[in-house]
């Protein structure tokens, strides 16, 4: 195939994956709507003891949640399948882009943002495959994913092209890949914290489990908090590494390893906010909702860094290619 055909294919795959994600969102919605109650999160509300009596939640447990009717399980499986196929086509978007331009497919904001969303979807799929109870999160992850993808397609789209000289470095692979990974994982973490905030208020009000509202069908606040923390713990070293790799690259490309360029500044701010989140999570008086808010602020900072700093401010990082 010629580069032009590959680019065209990449764009088609983009639309296809948006379509598949939308269908998956609908299926996840159906799973929630037809479910009577979310599976009660076993082994979670047991901080006080007695956990050992309950069967541990393990990957071997095939998600046969006792309270889910077969039709619900079927919807859940269809949704997972659609999301997985969507993720594969999504990966295809980047692969064909990379082949068309003969370089790593994260040289501009369109490609970067597309890759971040892919990481978020994959992170969710991995979580949901390991603990089937988390499939109930599907709607809340995939709906923002669809919105982000549409926004990326509408506002960030650029034709594939070669990279400017400063980006031609093996550090592009190291720095940008890890930044994408970290961002995608933080994305899932942030969503979990938002849901935690919603759900914990519902639980604090005595949460009526037979309620037909969506909150009633979310995983428990404790689970959401744990998902948020675990993903942040996973993302933080990756982000730390991405920042260090960026500094190493900046040293060879720009003649200083740190110069408080707007992008660097916001990467630093995000790092500090996530450090604050990890602290808050273990500090009396900050656990629970305050900590979750810190995590949400962290995600806001990441998104701001992607959008504002690339599109509005000017700095050495303005390779975004969006004008």
């Amino acid at each position, binding site marked *: 195939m010629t580069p032009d055909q590959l680019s065209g294919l990449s764009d088609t795959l983009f639309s296809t994956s948006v379509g598949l994600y939308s269908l998956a969102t609908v299926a996840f919605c159906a799973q929630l709507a037809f479910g009577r109650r979310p599976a009660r999160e076993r082994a979670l509300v047991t901080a006080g003891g007695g956990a050992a009596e309950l069967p541990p939640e393990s990957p071997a447990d095939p998600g046969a949640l006792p309270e889910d009717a077969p039709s619900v399980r079927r919807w859940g499986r269809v949704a997972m399948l659609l999301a997985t196929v969507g993720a594969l086509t999504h990966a295809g978007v980047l692969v064909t882009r990379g082949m068309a331009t003969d370089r790593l497919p994260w040289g501009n904001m369109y490609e970067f943002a597309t890759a971040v969303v892919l990481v978020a979807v994959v992170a969710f799929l991995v979580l949901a495959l390991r603990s089937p109870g988390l499939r109930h999160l599907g709607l809340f992850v995939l709906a923002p994913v669809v919105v982000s993808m549409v926004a990326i397609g509408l506002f960030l789209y650029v034709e594939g092209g070669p990279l400017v000289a400063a980006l031609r470095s093996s550090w592009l692979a190291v720095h940008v890949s890890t930044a994408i990974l970290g961002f995608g994982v933080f994305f899932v973490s942030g969503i979990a914290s938002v849901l935690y905030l919603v759900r914990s208020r519902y639980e604090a009000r005595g949460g009526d489990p037979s309620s037909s509202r969506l909150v009633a069908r979310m995983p428990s606040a404790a689970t959401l908090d744990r998902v948020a923390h675990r993903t942040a713990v996973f993302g933080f070293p990756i982000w730390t590494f991405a920042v260090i790799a960026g500094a190493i690259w900046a040293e060879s*490309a720009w003649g200083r390893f740190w110069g408080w360029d707007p992008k660097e500044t916001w990467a630093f701010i995000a790092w500090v906010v996530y450090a604050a989140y990890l602290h808050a999570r273990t500090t009396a008086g900050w656990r629970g909702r305050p900590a979750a808010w810190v995590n949400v602020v962290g995600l806001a900072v990441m998104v701001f860094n992607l959008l504002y700093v690339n599109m509005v401010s000017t700095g050495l990082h303005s390779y975004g290619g969006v004008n």
Partner: protein
Amino acid sequence: MSTVAPPRPAAAPPPSSPARPSAVRRLGGFLLRQWRRLTAMRTAIVLLFLLALAAIPGSLLPQRSLSQANVQQYFADHPTLAPVLDDLFLFDVFSSPWFAAVYLLLFVSLIGCVLPRALEHARALRTPPPPAPRRLTRLPDSARLDTTLPAGAALDAVEEELRVRRYRVVRRERGGVAELSAEKGLLKETGNLVFHLALVALLLGLAGGKLWGYEGSILVTEGDRFCNSFQQYDTYSAGALVDSGDLSPVCVGLEDFRAEYEENLTAASFTADITYGAPGEEGSPEVIGVNDPLRVDGDRVYVTGHGFSPRFTVTLPDGRTFADVSAPFLPVEQSTMSSEGALKLPDLGAGSDDQLALQGFFAPTGLVQDDILTSIDPRPLAPQVAVVAFQGYLGLDSGLPQSVYSLDQSQIERGRLTEVARGNLSVGESLDLPDGTTVTFDGYSEFAALQFSHDPGQVWVLGAAIAVLAGLLGMLLLRRERVFARADTDPATGGTVLDVGALTRGSGDGAPRFAALTDDLRAVLASRDPARADRAPSGSASSTGGTSA
């Protein structure tokens, strides 16, 4: 799985008794309280937040460290607001006293928090795990197993299982009841300490680099060279402890500069052939480029940009010629390399009012439409200049600094410098001035923007950053687990009741591992059950005993 963090000893000893508070005591008490407040985790979170907040204006307002020109522009655009912001150091956020105050407080807090922990950890590494808590069922994970084995043998089985899992195990006896404490994962705490202390090292490395480092930038035309001294640089910045006599004695020459482009005119690579060596020496040949600086003994030479210097020949009416006069024109648009600059010739004629200046626009590949010259290609395929010639007084010796890249606009406004001719020139073409002077466009030379940097802190910072990462991985990925067991005789059955409890700190869920442990224990206990011994004789009753750490 514990949503409640395991109990941790309070960071500080209990408050001392305030019997007869003298003034000194009271002051001491006050200071101690403030110190404890500063080193509390809560304060750390607030300070982290403050640090994040403090960095924000540094990204939203123009910063002198990034671009003097943008700051000047801001002053021009906001003449009343800018001085106020400037008084608050908002154009130098990252070197401002209040930014420093936040991070210094944070680091004092960090040291105050981490050093005691480090001492405690050093002690913990040498002391056996603590005694079992009274009520094992209170622990996040706990289980009760019944066995007919005697208490000692039951604990032997637990100890074996734990040693296989690489726990440190201690056996104790309290009130006639045998108990066991086991622990693993002390490296997690080591990771935490390494991480936090490495942050301090990183800050020190940064500070050292700031104090003893310097950098200078200069435009060098092909064939020229410069030596490392502050007088030579177009712009430089140096740390407070840099003595200008201490600069590395080296000179750098630019032999050749090459820019390569893709078909769609994206810049593909910039390469400069330079010579590098002590003054008076030939210098050794080196090739540097974007992403590929020269690094020698802590000094580094970078290519940070490039451009063109158009060359002219000026012939005066009396026949005197000045050949090959040129000045660097700065690129205003990277994609086409259209450039602007000024060539000032103060020493042509007799008087100071006979000075000549050319203000111009250079197009590497020019296209003239309606008399307007634009550049359509960054490569010098058809170079052209648009020049405006001025004659009069340039004001160079007026004492006020002026840019080498543009004319002093105020001289023009005052009428001291007047426009005498303008035109678009291709190579070889001339512009005739009214007084008979001719200006001929001869071609161009290429220049490179080079930067010479010296940062003695850099290696430290890199080392500290690697330690930060290593500590972080240890702290976040490892788990510290404690397991306690107590074996008591059950008066009712005559058998043994084995209580086991576990405490996990760190990532993940302790429950599955604890369940696996108790499953294995059940199996082992059952296999050693004397009641079934005749059916399945267990090999050895107990091989590992005693109390060791």
